[in-house]
């Protein structure tokens, strides 16, 4: 665990020493804010409900998370520090977890900085705090899965740009695949499989204020699966 934290600490230091992390987080806050207040006209609608705000999170995460994870492995390879990391006494699991933790922390920080939005809204009317908590929990869980996917793609990519594009595309497919399902109609086997696959389908119940253990299990197992794939990839490289 000490090693995992050492890796995460180094990552976060690098992130905060460079302007990229600040820019990405600022961009996220600006976009979600503009969407809520100007595009959807939060004040004009006159409803103290943030469902609108949380409903765009799955799509926004498709861009936020890749922007935070693209550097992860691709940058290490460019700098040659990949060789340092793999010759320091870390196990592959510790490396993967440390990097996951730091990217997840940044994403969670971005989300934490949205708190003024519900706080400001709560001054306008009565709010369901429990619902808000599940909405945040849903976003955090989806973030965990998305960060694991972004990290994995970064570990395969040759450079940051391809890591970013690859992760955006992969996440968009996973988020939008339930729209395809709704075209097909809700009954069929294919449709329910596509729904099951979708990152946003599992998010829906959270955004309605419901915590379903199946959705919880989906996000956690997706995160674990991709962390495992990353670690496996690192080990496999040593043999080739």
């Amino acid at each position, binding site marked *: 665990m000490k090693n995992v934290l050492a890796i995460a600490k180094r990552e976060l230091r690098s992130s905060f020493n460079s302007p990229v992390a600040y820019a990405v987080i600022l961009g996220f806050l600006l976009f979600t804010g503009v969407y809520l207040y100007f595009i959807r006209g939060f004040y004009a609608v006159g409803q103290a409900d943030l469902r609108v705000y949380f409903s765009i999170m799955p799509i926004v995460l498709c861009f936020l998370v890749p922007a935070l994870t693209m550097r992860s492995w691709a940058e290490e390879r460019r700098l040659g520090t990949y060789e340092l990391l793999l010759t*320091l*006494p870390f196990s592959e699991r510790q490396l993967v977890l440390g990097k996951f933790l730091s990217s997840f922390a940044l994403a969670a920080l971005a989300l934490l900085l949205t708190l003024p939005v519900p706080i400001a809204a709560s001054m306008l009317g009565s709010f369901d705090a429990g619902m808000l908590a599940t909405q945040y929990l849903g976003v955090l869980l989806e973030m965990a899965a998305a960060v694991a996917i972004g990290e994995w793609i970064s570990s395969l990519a040759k450079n940051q740009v391809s890591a970013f594009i690859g992760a955006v595309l992969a996440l968009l497919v996973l988020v939008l695949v339930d729209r395809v399902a709704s075209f097909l109609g809700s009954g069929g086997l294919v449709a329910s499989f596509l729904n099951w696959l979708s990152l946003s389908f599992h998010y829906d119940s959270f955004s309605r204020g419901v915590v379903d253990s199946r959705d919880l299990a989906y996000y956690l197992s997706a995160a674990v699966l991709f962390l495992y794939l990353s670690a496996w990839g690192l080990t496999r490289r040593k043999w080739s």
Partner: protein
Amino acid sequence: MIELRELRKSYGGVEAVKGVSFVAETGSVLGLLGPNGAGKTTIMKVLTGYHFPSSGTALVDGIDVSEDPIAVKARVGYLPESVPLYQDLTVAEYLDFVADARGLAGGERASAIERAVASCGLSGVYRKKVEDLSKGYKQRTGLAQAILHDPPILILDEPTTGLDPNQIIEIRALIRSLGESKTVILSTHILQEVEAICSRVIILSEGRVAAQGAPSEIGDALKGEERIVLRLKSASRPVDRERLSGIPGLRSVASLESESPGVWAAEIAMPPASSASGAMEAGELVFDWAVANGLKVLELERRRLSLEEIFVKLTQEGDGR
């Protein structure tokens, strides 16, 4: 101590190391020499646990690198060829991360960082960002990283590239002193470096060991011939190639020129002492021949092949095959 037994390593379909065995003792500096692509870096990557061997074994202090890579990594300090630095960290933050990774804590940690900073001459740039450092300081920061935890094994891939002559002398002195108590393996393509710091040298060519030994003795071992530089004075007949061919056992005449009237300089190749006729040394044979032919020997010197010549000879022979 490091031991390699019949180490082989292939990437994809290409075999980069084709059965290399050697032992590097504690308290020695072993130099790996060879042209690009000879397998130096690959051997180092296996010894640092970055790659696993395709076959054969690599033991670091008796630990097999593919069985317990973490234990091996804990013992090894490694400076890769492309210095692994995080550009957006300061030297202090960078060494702090390495100290974390090495599990250094408390007073031990502070003194380790202080020692590495002092011996690599980094105190002036300690608070600077790595991206703002000159190439020499970057190289030294990389070296500080490698020696931070005072490892018993030190593996340095071309440690003096990018340094100016003064820095090279400092760093070589540092490596030499580290070599007194540790096992140091370094790779280089600078031959003087091998002569300056290595107690043993291994010349690699196309993934195989072409020669090994102390830098001074390695020449004798592989030459297969003795080179003799001669200056001869002849009062009457000129010295020509035909006359030189009278030397018993002569292999070839590398050069012959008239220096001044009546004085000739020549370089000749003789068979090595063991196979020369009558077990006489080559110099003896040449001297006796000169006396018998009424020539005065002004100079007679047995010439050692320089490492450069050995290197070129060995590695080109490899290419020709």
